[in-house]
């Protein structure tokens, strides 16, 4: 199957000469949930900016659904890859929620009724339709985050890339956001989430990409996160449940979610 996103030998350095990405290569299949993980300064945000053609490759290629990112294709790429920034105050810049959600579809040159239909559907999807007339400064942080997602969803992207979406959210808002992401996944949207949260990534993602020092350290299933050596090299930590299960040599393969651990422990409990 043709991947929806391909990054090949991507290099990027900032104007002051600081290298951010050094030969990054990976591919993502359509409809998957991918967690991009790595320590601060690993290049995650810079990589996300490349996927949306805000930054263009200095060397290498970024191909979105068969379209290579370049000056001439950047607008098409931006309608294919929706990017949700870490701080919603950076992203929700219009005077009202409604205006902000309409911003992307209007830039796509859609007709008035189509813009309104998309904005309404996007706000409905994140549960903010009742706050459409509200000024962003009067929203809670979690609501601003959802408004930022609605602004991107209204463009109906095939890929949604989110930079630290769970950061600074309370547990209830995190659950709400995860439910939104899961609904989008069911609708066939490919999701790429940059995060430090190993517990969440292990339980949520279909695939993990580990990025360290501007290089891909590993790509594979979430079970990657049960390898202590790999996780240490990535400057991350093991999922809490894995840390616990590693204490019991009989629990192999090592569980990395609560459900897996429960399934592994249940027969022992009933047997004992």
């Amino acid at each position, binding site marked *: 199957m043709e991947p929806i996103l391909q990054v090949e030998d991507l290099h990027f350095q900032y104007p002051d000469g600081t290298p951010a990405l050094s030969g990054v290569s990976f591919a993502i299949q359509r409809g998957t949930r991918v967690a991009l993980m790595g320590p601060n300064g690993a290049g995650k945000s810079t990589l996300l900016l490349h996927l949306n053609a805000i930054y263009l490759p200095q060397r290498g290629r970024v191909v979105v659904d068969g379209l290579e990112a370049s000056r001439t294709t950047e607008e098409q790429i*931006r309608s294919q890859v929706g990017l949700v920034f870490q701080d919603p105050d*950076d992203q929700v810049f*219009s005077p009202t929620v409604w*205006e902000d959600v309409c911003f992307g579809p209007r830039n796509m040159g859609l007709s008035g009724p189509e813009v309104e239909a998309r904005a309404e559907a996007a706000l409905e999807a994140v549960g903010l339709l009742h706050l459409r007339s509200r000024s962003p*400064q009067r929203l809670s942080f979690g609501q601003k985050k959802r408004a930022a997602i609605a602004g991107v969803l209204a463009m109906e992207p095939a890929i949604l890339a989110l930079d630290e979406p769970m950061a600074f959210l309370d547990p209830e808002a995190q659950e709400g956001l995860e439910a939104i992401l899961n609904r989008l996944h069911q609708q066939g949207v490919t999701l790429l989430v940059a995060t430090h949260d190993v517990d969440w990534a292990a339980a949520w993602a279909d695939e993990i990409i580990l990025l360290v020092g501007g290089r891909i350290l590993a790509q594979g299933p979430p079970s990657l996160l049960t390898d202590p050596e790999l996780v240490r090299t990535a400057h991350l930590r093991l999922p809490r449940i894995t840390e616990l299960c590693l204490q019991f040599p009989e629990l192999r393969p090592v569980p990395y979610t609560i459900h897996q651990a429960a399934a592994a422990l249940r027969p022992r409990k009933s047997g004992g």
Partner: protein
Amino acid sequence: MEKLIRSVSPRVRIGALLALIIATSLLGSWQMLLLLAALGLVLALAAGLSLRAVLKRLFWLLWLGAGLLLTLPLAVPGTPVFQLPAGPWTLAPTQAGLTLAGLLCLRMLGCFLLALALAASTPAPELLEALDQLGVPQLFVVLAGVALRYISVLRDEVRRQALSRRSRGYRPEGSILHRRTLRHYAQMVGMLLLRAYDRSERIYWAMLSRGYSLKRRPVPVSRFSSGERWALGAALAFAVCLVLLDRQVMGGG
């Protein structure tokens, strides 16, 4: 009255305000200027502002007016009204200077009250949309919208910085002119500028990521309806009448 004002489309309100502001700058008689200022006050009150809110906003204008009243009479040549010895100098405010300062203050007051009426009757998003519909350059409209949106964000950043300083034992010493206090404020403003610069770059990326480009106009400019044309025509006619009446009053005086 409030309903009547809000029934007029925002772009007509902007057009009418511009016509009246231009008329204000052409008026020369204090009677007409007072009349226009009174009209502005009535409109501002009718738009839902309380008298207290109007006076509160006027407070900042007073400083500018006081500056004009204090300096212009001394700068404009003419017959001195009185002479005041001030050390080696003699202050001699002139009649022409006082008249000019009074005239400018009244013009300023009229324009301010009319603009206040517009702002009170038109929420910011409607105002921006109306400016866009009037064909105002998109860059200006976007900048105005972003500035409105981020005032509160900047205010929150100032609050957080002040809180952070206080939490680490900082207390302002004396007045703002105290060296240490002044240095702290300078650092705060500098930090605010740096953060605003970084944020502006991120906001621009966020705009680009959703297909923003100055090359295209997202909202098509619609033609004025016949009702809007009539309302705008009436406002223009009123402004012209004011100027003509002013000429009569000035000629009579």
